[in-house]
C-alpha cells in the first residue's frame, strides 16, 4: 500500500494569534519524520492538522491526492492513527475493550467485532507485549503500560500513517527505547509511515530519517538529522547553548545541554582540586 501525505502552504490560528504559518512538506511512504521545537512552536497543532481534526486555514493537506477536508472521519481513521501522551478516563474499560475500539473505523453496520477483529487485537497486544494485561482495567495500569495499550489500539486501526505526539513523556528510559524500537521495526518491516513529535531531540535524531525543526509556527529547518541538529540551529530556535557531537551508537548528532552555571561551578571545583 502506498501513502503520500502532502502539506501545502498550511497555516492555522486559534482565535487571533497565528499558531502555524507557511507549512509545506511531503511525507513519503515508509518515512520516519521527527518534529522538534520549543514549547508553543505549534507541534501538537500540526499533528491535529495532519489527522484532519483541525482544518487548515489557509492551505490544504492531501492524503493520496484527496484533501483531508473532503474525507469522512472514519475514512481518515482507516489510514491514520494517533497516539497522544495521556488518556484520562471517566468511565472504566479494560485493555482488550480499549484495543478493540481501534477496530471501529473498520466495523460494518452490525457494530460488533468479528473473529477477524479479535485476532487483529490479540496480535497487536502480543506485539506491544500487553497480552497479559488484557483483562486489567486501563486506569490500573502504569504510564508505560498505558502508552503501549494506546499504541496497540493505533496498530489495530491498521493505519498507513502513525502520528505520535510525545508518546513517551511518561515512560522511563528503558520503556522509551522499547517503544521507539517497536515503532522503528514496524516502520521498517511494514512500511508504516511515522511522524513523531518529541521534546527529546536526541531521541528524534536517533530514530527519525528526517527532522523538522519548528520555530514559532514556521519551519526553521527540514532535512536529515545532521543538517538540522546543529549547535547553531538549536541555539537560534531554543535560545540555549548546546554542544553537538556524534552519538557513538547511531552515528547521529547528539545534543548535550550547556548550563553556564554548572560550567562555572565545575571549573571552580577543578581549581580547588588542583590547589589541594
Amino acid at each position, binding site marked *: 500500500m502506498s501513502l503520500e501525505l502532502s502539506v501545502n502552504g498550511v497555516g492555522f490560528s486559534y482565535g487571533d494569534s497565528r499558531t502555524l504559518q507557511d507549512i509545506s512538506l511531503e511525507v513519503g511512504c515508509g518515512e520516519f519524520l521527527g518534529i522538534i521545537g520549543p514549547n508553543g512552536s505549534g507541534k501538537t497543532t500540526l499533528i491535529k492538522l495532519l*489527522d484532519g481534526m483541525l482544518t487548515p486555514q489557509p492551505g490544504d493537506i492531501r492524503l493520496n491526492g484527496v484533501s483531508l477536508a473532503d474525507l469522512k472521519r472514519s475514512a481518515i481513521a482507516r489510514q491514520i492513527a494517533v497516539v497522544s501522551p495521556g488518556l484520562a478516563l471517566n*468511565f472504566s474499560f479494560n485493555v482488550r475493550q480499549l484495543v478493540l475500539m481501534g477496530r471501529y473505523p473498520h*466495523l460494518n453496520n452490525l457494530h460488533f467485532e468479528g473473529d477477524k477483529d479479535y485476532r487483529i487485537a490479540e496480535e497487536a497486544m502480543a506485539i506491544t507485549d500487553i497480552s497479559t494485561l488484557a483483562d486489567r482495567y486501563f486506569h490500573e495500569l502504569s504510564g508505560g503500560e498505558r502508552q503501549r495499550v494506546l499504541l496497540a489500539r493505533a496498530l489495530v486501526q491498521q493505519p498507513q500513517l502513525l502520528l505520535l505526539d510525545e508518546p513517551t513523556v511518561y515512560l522511563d528510559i528503558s520503556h522509551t527505547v522499547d517503544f521507539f524500537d517497536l515503532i522503528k521495526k514496524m516502520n521498517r518491516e511494514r512500511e508504516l509511515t511515522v511522524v513523531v513529535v518529541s521534546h527529546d531531540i536526541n531521541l528524534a535524531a536517533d530514530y527519525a530519517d528526517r527532522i523538522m525543526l519548528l520555530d514559532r509556527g514556521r519551519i526553521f529547518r527540514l532535512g536529515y538529522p545532521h543538517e538540522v541538529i546543529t549547535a547553531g540551529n538549536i541555539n537560534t530556535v531554543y535560545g540555549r547553548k548546546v554542544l553537538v557531537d556524534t552519538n557513538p551508537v547511531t552515528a547521529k548528532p547528539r545534543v548535550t545541554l550547556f548550563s553556564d552555571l554548572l560550567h562555572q561551578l565545575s571549573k571552580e571545583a577543578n581549581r580547588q582540586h588542583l590547589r589541594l
Partner: protein
Amino acid sequence: MTVTFKKVVFCSLCLLILLVLSALSAIYFGPAKISPLEILSIFQQGFGGSTQGVIILSIRLPRIILAGLIGAALAAAGSIFQALLRNPLADPYILGISSGAAVGAISVILLGYAAGGWCIPLFSFIGALLTVLLVFYVARTREKIQTNTLLLAGVIVNSFFSAVIMLLLSISNGHDLQGILYWLMGDLGQADYGKLVLILPYILGGVGVLYLYTPKINLMLLGEDEAGQLGVEVETTKKILYLLASLITGAAVSVCGIIGFVGLIIPHIVRLIWGNDYRLLLPASFLLGGSFLIIADTIARTIISPVELPVGVITAVCGTPFFIYLLRTRKVL
C-alpha cells in the same frame, strides 16, 4: 467484559423476562383483591364486563405499561446524558428539560385547563422542547457544542425555570397546589391507553435510533479528540445524542411528571454489572429501568393502601441503598 452480539441478545432476553414477570406480578397487587384465576379469565374475556375487569384492564394494565415505558425511557435517556456530558452524575433532567416541562404543566394547571387530561402532557411537552432548543442555542458557539458550555447552559436554564416554578407555586391556591406537587413528584396515576400511544413512538423510535449510535457512544466516552481520531464525526454525534435523549425525556416527563433517580441509578447498576459498553448498556438500562419503575410503582400504590405514595419516593428509597451497596462492593465505575 468484551461485548458480543450473543451476549447482548442473552442479557436482553433475561431482562425482558424480568420485565414481563414484574409486569405480570404487578397486575395482581392493588387495593381490590382479585385472584390470579380471575385475572386470567378477565384477559380471556377482554374489555367490557365486570368492575374487576375495568380495574384490571383500564386501570392497572395501562398504568403498569406506562410505568414500564417511562422507567425504560428515563434509564435510557440518563445513560445517554452521562455519555454525552462524560459525567457519571448526569441524569435526564440535568439540562433543564424537567423544569421547562414543569413550567408548561404548572401554567396549564393554574389556568384551569387541566381537566381535559390532554392539556398537561401537551403543554409540558412543548415546555420541554422549548427548553431543549433554548439550551442548545445558548450552548452553541461557532457551529460547535462544547460539553462544558452545554452543561453550564443547562444548569443556568434549569435554575431560571426553577425560579419560575417557585413563583408560580407561591401564587397558586391550595387546590391547584396539590395537583402541581403531584406532578412535580411524578405521578403515574393518570395512565390511559391514549397517553401510551402518544409517547410510544418517541420513546421506541428514539431509543432505536440511539442504539445505532452505541459504538460511537463508546468512543465518545474516551473524550472528543480520541473519538474523532478513531473515526467518529463528533459534532454531529453530539447533536443527535442531545436531541434524541432530550426528546425521549420530554415525552416521558410530559405524561407523568418528574420521576427522579431512575435515570441516574439504573445505568450505573448496569455499568457495575456489565461494564460501560453501550451496545449492552443501552438496551440493558432500557429493560431494567422498565422493571424497576413497575416494581417501584406497585410498592408506591400498595404499601399504605388505599393511599398512594408518589413513586419518586419509592425510587429514591429503594434505589439509593442498593446503589450504595454496589458502589461499596465494586471498586470501579
